[in-house]
């Protein structure tokens, strides 16, 4: 495990290119392209007009767009031709969101107040408009094969979903959804089923076929705060729905009924569950070596806690909006074997569920609240950060905590994997660094560990 030098970063915007070869990290008003394969770190530097607020790679990793919402500007850069550039100005309509279409030749800009979505083409001069986009949590979703765009719309106080063909932006289907206030839509990875869920005030999941037929609706309970997070398994077989009652419900793809329910109790008594507890290592050599190394955060390690274990819980303020309860984060491992969840009122713990046995497998309890976790796209390996200067890795073989080197405290607030899974970008408030997991002999540390145990 090697760490790169630390680069400056603003707005915690750090994106790996889809092929995993490059990493873009915007400085204050310049875009930094870092190669993840060669060890010559900085590859390219593009200077933008203003502070970059959003960065996105095109699907073919050839272009990169930088959005400057304050100015209503989008700038596009080409990696192959550094002199090529494109600038899109939304003018007085304003800009709140910008994204690539899956073919990497169109840019979808959402204007202020969600008046419309402008589709700019890089191939032709043509511009398309889509009216009535809905301002919601996740209103735009492309199918994984890049063929279709599903868009949440709101007209006359009713929710609609429009499905567009991405090749020519033709409307394929348009149907209304039976929702109070649609909160999000998401394609299944196989691109044939669209999941739509209602606002948090109501627990409702709707499943639509590609041709607009309603396949199923699912409602677990009424009169209480509903869905908080939704995730498809990569095999399209499961739909995991995390809700405010602290449970994850798994729907199956045949009957669309609930397969099982994963509660997140603060007390774990099942002896089959392994509970890893992060513990601070007692400082070694306090006598032998007088404060030679600069004072740094204490190192930590994992200990296996004997069940029953009770986890630290947070009492949420019930009278505030967005209470810190419920399952706020869900992620399936790339092989669909594991599901990692976080219950927001047990902020220090990550639950890992075994999707084959449909039961709790491992619980990781950190010393600090879990900020973010993400699966390695190549293997069941989970990276977790909790706002400290450590990054944590879990795999079925075991888990470990790694201190991020460098002077000063590098507080890891977020992390992301490239598609190759051999590196890890760690983001702090205004810096980022790369963590290379591949060692010289080709086997990474955790892999070795896995072989032993």
């Amino acid at each position: 495990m090697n760490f790169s030098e630390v680069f400056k970063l603003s707005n915690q915007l750090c994106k790996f290119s889809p092929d995993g070869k490059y990493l873009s990290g915007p400085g204050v008003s310049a875009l930094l392209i870092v190669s993840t394969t060669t060890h010559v770190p900085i590859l390219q530097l593009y200077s933008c007009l203003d502070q970059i607020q959003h960065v996105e790679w095109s699907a073919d990793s050839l272009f990169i767009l930088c959005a400057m919402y304050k100015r209503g500007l989008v700038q596009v850069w080409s990696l192959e031709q550094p002199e090529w550039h494109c600038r899109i100005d939304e003018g007085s309509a304003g800009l709140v969101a910008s994204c690539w279409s899956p073919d990497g030749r169109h840019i979808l800009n959402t204007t202020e107040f969600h008046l419309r979505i402008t589709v700019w083409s890089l191939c032709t001069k043509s511009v398309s408009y889509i009216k009535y986009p809905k301002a919601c949590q996740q209103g735009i979703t492309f199918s994984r094969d890049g063929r279709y765009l599903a868009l949440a719309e709101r007209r006359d106080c009713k929710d609609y979903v429009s499905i567009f063909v991405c090749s020519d932006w033709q409307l394929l289907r348009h149907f209304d959804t039976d929702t109070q206030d649609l909160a999000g839509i998401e394609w299944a990875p196989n691109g044939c089923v669209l999941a739509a869920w209602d606002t948090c005030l109501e627990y409702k999941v709707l499943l639509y076929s590609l041709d607009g037929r309603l396949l199923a609706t699912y409602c677990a309970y009424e009169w209480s705060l509903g869905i908080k997070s939704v995730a498809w398994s990569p095999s399209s077989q499961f739909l995991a729905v995390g809700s405010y009652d602290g449970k994850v419900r798994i729907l199956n793809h045949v009957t669309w009924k609930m397969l099982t329910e994963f509660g997140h109790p603060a007390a774990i008594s099942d002896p089959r569950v392994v509970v890893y507890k992060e513990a601070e290592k007692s400082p070694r050599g306090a006598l032998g070596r007088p404060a030679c190394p600069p004072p740094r955060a204490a190192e930590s390690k994992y200990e296996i806690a004997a069940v029953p274990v009770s986890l630290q819980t947070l009492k949420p303020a019930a009278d505030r909006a967005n209470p810190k309860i419920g399952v706020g984060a869900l992620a399936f491992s790339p092989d669909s074997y594991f599901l990692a969840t976080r219950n927001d009122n047990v902020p220090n713990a990550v639950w890992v569920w075994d999707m084959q046995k449909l039961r709790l497998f491992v619980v990781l309890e950190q010393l600090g609240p879990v900020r973010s976790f993400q699966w390695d796209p190549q293997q069941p390996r989970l990276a977790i950060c909790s706002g400290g200067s450590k990054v944590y890795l879990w795999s079925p073989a075991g888990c470990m905590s790694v201190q991020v080197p460098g002077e000063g405290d590098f507080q890891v607030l977020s992390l992301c994997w490239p598609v190759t899974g051999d590196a890890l970008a760690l983001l702090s408030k205004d810096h980022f660094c790369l963590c290379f997991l591949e060692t010289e002999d080709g086997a990474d540390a955790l892999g070795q560990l896995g072989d032993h145990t």
Partner: protein
Amino acid sequence: MGDWMTVTDPGLCSESKNISQYTSETKMSPSSLYSQQVLCSSIPLSKNVHSFFSAFCTEENIEQSISYLDQELTTFGFPSLYEESKGKETKRELNIVAVLNCMNELLVRQRKNLLAQENVETQNLKLGSDMDHLQSCYAKLKEQLETSRREMIGLQERDRQLQCKNRNLHQLLKNEKDEVQKLQNIIASRATQYNHDMKRKEREYNKLKERLHQLVMNKKDKKIAMEVLNYVGRADGKRGSWRTGKSEARNEDEMYKILLNDYEYRQKQILTENAELKKVLQQMKKEMISLLSPQKQKPVEKADDSTGTGISDVEEDPGELSRESIWDLSCETVREQLTNSIRKQWRILKSHVEKLDNQVSKVHLEGFNDEDVISRQDHEEETEKLELEIQQCKEMIKTQQQLLQQQLATACDDDTTSLLRDCYLLEEKERLKEEWSLFKEQKKNFEKERQSFTEAAIRLGLERKAFEEERASWLKQQFLNMTTFDHQNSENVRLFSAFSGSSDRDNLTVHSRPRQKPYRVSNGSLVCTSKLTKSLPASPTTDFCQTRSCVSEHSSINVLNMPPEETRPNQVGGECANQKWSVASRPGSQEGCCSECSWTSTNSHVEKDGLP
């Protein structure tokens, strides 16, 4: 009556008097009042009988007295005291004989009466005590009744209170329910109101948006523009196509194609899954038939009506169609038949397995107990024999020693003889020494023999245990061999369906942590060995090194069985570049440690047992 009694009384001994006094005291009747007075007065006068009698009869009134007595006696049915008078006028003579007879009779009667009285009194006493007892019983019962009554009242009170509470709770529940209902209504109304408001707001918002849209979009905003250095080609290299009805149709087609593909894929999945399942089912059935039909012929025939038909059904039907074709038929036609036959056979199998289980457990129990007992008995007998021998030897040695001592003592006694015998003594001493060493050797031999025997016994026990295990495993293996299906096939169905989560569970548990098995087995054997050694009676002279080495041999094998990394997984932590790694291992490795721990513990146990 009382008069009469007292009159005859004084002639009797003083004890009777006492008794009468006592009885009269206990049972005071109004008629005996007089007698008591007489008695009281008679006690001091008892010495002077005459003076007492004078009170009744004096010289003057003999005649009257006699006549009075005669009268009295005749009224009581005694013969007259007077002789039969010849003449009426003549004075009748006192018949002495009659008087004496009467007196005797009276005395006899008196005695009888006294006896009767005594009896009556004792009875009375008894009755009195009975009465007392009953009274106390009565009192007790009354008390009990009182307490129970009180208790009952208390319970009733409590019951009442509880009922009251219950009623209150019911009321509360009802209130709560009402409250919930009310709140739900409120929520519903709020929700509708909220929705209404939202809609209103949204409409306004929409209006504003529309307005804004017009304002912003119709102004021909010059700023809205795109500057591109040069247009890039499409990713697929094609040119953009016009939007026509044709393209629309093409899109539709494509969409349906995708959907169809998906459905086809799913159907294929299901088909393969079904085929696998059918295969498994078929195989299972075949196995069952082959397993059950030859050896279970008898029980099947016994239960011919219920179970035998299952097999015969299947045996007959495939005669018409070949087996394979049956399986390729759609489920509808075969399903019922198939499930029925499987179910029946499964039942047979289940009963068979249960029977086998019973048998095995019985055999196991019996065999184990019998052999164990026998070996122990043998062992005990042998040790007893050996101990006896040792005892004998010791005695012999003792006597020898005594003799020697005596000889020495006598030698000491008189110096002259000692001097004389001195020459002999040396010789004798030598001889004795030789004898002594011989005895020692003998003793050693005995001990050795004994040791070897204990060893043999232990070995025997171990062997027996191993054999028992082997037999059990063989039986199990045989049974499993008859029923196993090729798991590889089922493993191929990796594309687990929605239901595979539950159905594959068992399969997967085996795959996920296969390494745990050997530990468990080895642990088990370890425990067994330790138990065996423990079961042997510890004797003081047994050198335990042998058994210990035996056990440790076992354990060393166990240790070898696990991969060497297992034993110290917690140390594994690479130091890469300049950062520290802290590693927590998963429980599998911990179990490795655990097994080690258990080994050491058993070892220590053995040692403890072995030490005298």
